[in-house]
C-alpha cells in the first residue's frame, strides 16, 4: 500500500517537474482532431457530429498509448525498474501505484481533450455529462490496468514502443466497443445502455485482478 503511494507520488512529482507527459498527450490529442479533419474532408457537420464519440475515443486510445509508453520509459534508464523489483512485499502494489499515476494523468488529458473536441465538432457534451463521465472513467480504468501491465512487459522484452500497441490494442477492443457505444448514447442524450457499463465493469475487474497478480512475474528476470 505504502509502496503504491510512494510510486504515485514519485510519478506525479516527476510529471509536475517536467509536465511533459500531460502536455504531450494533450497536444497529441488535439493534433488527432486536426488529422481527422484532414483525413475526413467533405463530411457534412451533422455526420461529423455523429462520429465525434468514436474519434474522441480513438484520440484517447492513442494518447494513452503515448503516456503508457513514457510511463515505463522513465523506469528504464539506469534500470530503475530493477530498483522497484527489489522492494519487499507484494509487487501488485507497484502495479497499482503505476496504474494510479497513469490513470490520474490520462484523466486530466481526457477532460481537456473532450473540451477541445466539443468545440471543434460543435457537440454539446453537457447534457449527457454524468453518463459520459462514468463511461470514460470506467473505460480508462481498464485501459490503465491492461496498459500498465503490458507496458511493463513490453519494456522488459526490450522492444518497448513497438510491442506495446501490438499487445495492448487487441486487449482494449472490447473496452473500446463498449465505451464508444456508451458514449454515443450519452452524447445523443440517451441513457447509457446497461450492457455497455456491464461489459466495462467485467473487463475492468478481470484486467485489474490479472494485472495485480501477474505483475510479480513481470518484474522478475
Amino acid at each position, binding site marked *: 500500500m505504502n509502496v503504491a503511494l510512494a510510486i504515485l507520488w514519485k510519478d506525479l512529482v516527476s510529471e509536475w517537474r517536467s509536465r511533459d507527459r500531460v502536455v504531450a498527450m494533450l497536444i497529441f490529442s488535439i493534433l488527432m482532431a486536426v488529422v481527422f479533419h484532414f483525413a475526413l474532408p467533405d463530411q457534412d457537420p451533422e455526420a461529423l457530429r455523429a462520429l465525434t464519440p468514436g474519434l474522441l475515443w480513438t484520440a484517447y486510445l492513442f494518447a494513452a498509448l503515448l503516456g503508457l509508453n513514457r510511463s515505463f520509459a522513465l523506469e528504464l534508464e539506469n534500470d530503475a525498474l530493477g530498483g522497484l523489483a527489489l522492494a519487499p512485499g507484494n509487487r501488485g502494489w507497484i502495479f497499482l501505484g503505476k496504474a494510479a499515476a497513469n490513470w490520474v494523468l490520462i484523466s486530466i488529458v481526457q477532460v481537456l481533450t473532450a473540451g477541445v473536441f466539443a468545440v471543434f465538432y460543435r457537440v454539446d457534451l453537457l447534457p449527457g455529462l454524468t453518463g459520459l463521465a462514468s463511461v470514460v472513467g470506467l473505460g480508462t480504468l481498464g485501459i490503465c490496468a491492461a496498459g500498465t501491465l503490458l507496458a511493463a*512487459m513490453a519494456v*522488459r*522484452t526490450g522492444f518497448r514502443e513497438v*510491442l506495446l500497441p501490438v499487445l495492448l*490494442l487487441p486487449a482494449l477492443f*472490447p473496452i473500446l466497443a463498449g465505451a464508444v457505444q456508451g458514449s454515443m448514447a450519452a452524447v445523443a442524450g440517451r441513457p447509457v445502455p446497461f450492457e455497455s457499463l456491464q461489459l466495462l465493469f467485467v473487463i475492468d475487474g478481470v484486467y485489474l485482478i490479472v494485472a495485480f497478480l501477474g505483475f510479480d512475474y513481470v518484474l*522478475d528476470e
Partner: protein
Amino acid sequence: MKPGNETAPNPEADIPSPLEARMSRWRRPLGIVLGLLTIGYAWSVVSAPIDHTQGVIQKILYVHPPLAYGAYLGFVITGFAGMVFLGRGREDLDRLAIASAEVGVIFCTLMLVTGPIWARGTWGVWWSWDARLTVTLLLWFVYLAYLLLRGFGGRNPRTARFAAIYGVLGLVLIPLNYYVIEIFGSRSMHPENLKQGSLGDGMGLPFLLGNLALAGAFFYLLLLRWEVESQRAREDDQGSEARVGGPRAPKD
C-alpha cells in the same frame, strides 16, 4: 508461488517430462482413429442432403463451427497451461501452451478463411463488420500477438512468463466471442449459436462426425507440436552446456 522462486524445480529437469512422455504415446493410436474418422466424415458430408436455399456452399457448416470450437479449445488450453506454469513452474506445461496457441491460431485462421467463403456464398460479401466476425478477428489478433511476444522475446523463462500472463488475459475474449451474438442479438448478421435441433434433417450426423474428426485433428496436431517443442527445449539445454564462457586472454 512462482516458478523457481526459492526452489526451482529439479535442475536437470527431464525433457520430455513424465507427462510429455505419457502424452506422446497417445499420438500414434490417435492418428489411426483420426484416419478412420476422416473417411466416415467425408462420406457423410458427401451423402448429406443439399440445402435447398443455400445450395452446396452450406456444406461449409461441417467444418466451420468445429474449427471455431477447436480455436476456443486451443486458447483455453493455452490460458490454463500458462496459469499452471506460473503457479508451479512446470516448464512442460509452458511448452504445451506454445503448442496449443499455435494450433489454436491455425484453427482460427482456417475459420477466418472458411467463414468469409461462406459469407461470400450466402450474404454476397466477403466480410462485414458484424459483431461475431469482428470479435473473432480480435481473438485471432490476441493470440497472434501472443505468438509474436514469444517470437520477439526469444526462448527464455521471462518471455514464457509474460506470454502466460498474456494468454490468461486473452481468455476474456472467448466468452465474449461466444455470447456476442446474444448481446448484440438483433443487429447481427451472423446466425445465432446452434441449439438443440436447429440443424436440418440428415445434417446432424455429418456435423457430429465433423466435430469429432476436427477435434481429433486438433489433438493430433497439438501432441505433435508439443513433441517438437520439447525436442527443441532439449537441444537448447544440451547446446548451452557446451562451453560458452567469457572472453579469454589472447594466447600469444
